[in-house]
């Protein structure tokens, strides 16, 4: 589903991505882990088109996306849950989700207000992420955990094929982390997931396979058990992550 070859991104003399290869099968749940500065968020930014790649190729479901804009990649089925909330603050939770649903058909529909089918779909998704009773609350009045749930709802509303989750549990309490991890675990298995996460419990629980990034390169890839037992991974990252 995701085919990345020789992906590079330089910032001046710094090689944030120094030739990353990554192959993710349809329906696979892949975690990308690594220490800070390993290039995880840069990888996501290059994948969504928010940053240009310096070199390398990217394919999504067989389509070369290297030269496409962010919105074109979204229309090919790529969605991203941001590390920080990227919500529409004055709009209610329902209106936020409706904006995402409306993007499928395009903005130029002359409906005075969204059709009932869209509103029903929005309420379904809000119920799925546990925000059924918060539909009419402006996004700015939601708690941190609820905002993360709404962020997830926005990414799901377009019915994407590939979902990029950028630290979905960052800054959450243990209870909130548990809720969002359960939500992600319950997602449709046909959805391909690429997850960047620092919480190793969440990573080992959600991921089918794990890729370890270090200094802009993929230094290891395997099942959670293989990664746990990998000596090099332990030295550069896991040892520190577990101790911390």
């Amino acid at each position: 589903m995701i085919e990345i070859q020789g992906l590079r991104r330089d910032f001046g003399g710094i090689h944030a991505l120094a030739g990353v290869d990554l192959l993710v099968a349809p329906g696979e749940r892949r975690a990308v882990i690594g220490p800070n500065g390993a290039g995880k968020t840069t990888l996501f930014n290059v994948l969504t088109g928010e940053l240009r790649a310096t070199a390398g190729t990217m394919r999504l479901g067989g389509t070369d996306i290297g030269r496409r804009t962010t919105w074109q990649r979204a229309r090919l089925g790529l969605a991203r849950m941001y590390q920080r909330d990227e919500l529409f603050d004055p709009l209610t939770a329902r209106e936020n989700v409706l904006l995402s649903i409306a993007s499928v058909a395009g903005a130029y529909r002359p409906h005075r207000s969204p059709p009932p089918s869209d509103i029903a779909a929005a309420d379904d998704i809000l119920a799925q992420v546990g925000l059924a009773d918060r539909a009419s609350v402006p996004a700015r009045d939601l708690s941190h955990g609820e905002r993360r749930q709404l962020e997830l709802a926005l990414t799901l509303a377009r019915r994407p094929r590939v979902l990029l989750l950028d630290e979905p549990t960052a800054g959450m309490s243990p209870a909130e982390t548990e809720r969002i991890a359960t939500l992600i675990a319950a997602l449709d298995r046909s959805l391909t997931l690429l997850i960047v996460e620092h919480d190793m419990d969440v990573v080992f629980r959600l991921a089918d396979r794990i890729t370890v990034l270090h200094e802009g390169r993929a230094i290891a890839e395997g099942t959670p058990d293989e990664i746990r037992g990998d000596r090099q991974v332990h030295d550069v990252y896991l040892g520190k992550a577990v101790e911390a």
Partner: protein
Amino acid sequence: MSRSMGIRAAIVLAAWIVLVTFPQWSAFWESSRFAAGVIRQILIFAIFASSLNLLVGYAGLPSLGHAAFFGGGAYAAAIAAQRLGTDELVVSLGAAIAGAAVLALVIGFLAVRALGIFFLMLTLALAQMVFAIAFQATDLTGGSNGFSNVHRPVLFGLDFNAAGDLYVLVCVAALLVGLLLWRVTTSTYGRALVGVRENERRMRALGYDTRTLKLSAFVLAGAIAGVAGALSSYEFRFVSPNDVALGTSVTGFVMVLIGGAGTLVGPVLGAAVVLLIERVLPSQLPAQTVLGIVFIVFVVFARQGIVGALRRVART
């Protein structure tokens, strides 16, 4: 239609009927004709400010060159009527809308590539180029002398030459533009514009082509400003480089901010306040200074304009 919406529509319609019949029911008042003239001008500038509000208030695009479309529309109406030798409303108004829209397409194509302060400066610079053309293309625009003696229009034999008839035309135009903007801003499209204002990056990640979305709003706002420009040319029977000048852009911006950006009623109230200060204040008082003080008061104490202040009062 929901009940509250029905009530709102009834209130708007009633207010409009009161307004459109103003010259009749105020006929006993010695200043009735003068007042009707002020109302015409308020409505013309309300259309202009409302079109700018679509950009500033809804899409979050702070254009400082909107007079290019107001004046561009005014010139297009006057030039089309003169060159084609007709006073038909369809011709001059159609030319104004088309001319302003094409101008907005060209300026917008360049401007929507920039963000924030750069967008503002780019719209300002491009509008100044339009001003320079209006000033220098003497054969087409009359240069600094402008176009005088612009004819008032006729519509299928109906003559709008008399002030009272022009008043009805302006009222009808204001109502139609208001309905159009209400429809646009409450639609999925209007929500998408608000989405661009709040978080353009997120809109792109959701699959919206935000640049085209912004350009479409720019062209729509330009076309509506063109309508205001055409009406202005009928009202004053005169078009000059002043209509495309920075001062007119700033006036529109001040109207939007005083009234309340991002609301439908705000720009109408803003236009009323500004024009009442300019036209009705005793001539001994310096109108521009008073306007400046009013503007400062709103920027400092009521950022959401008159509508925002009224809402705050209603809530307490």
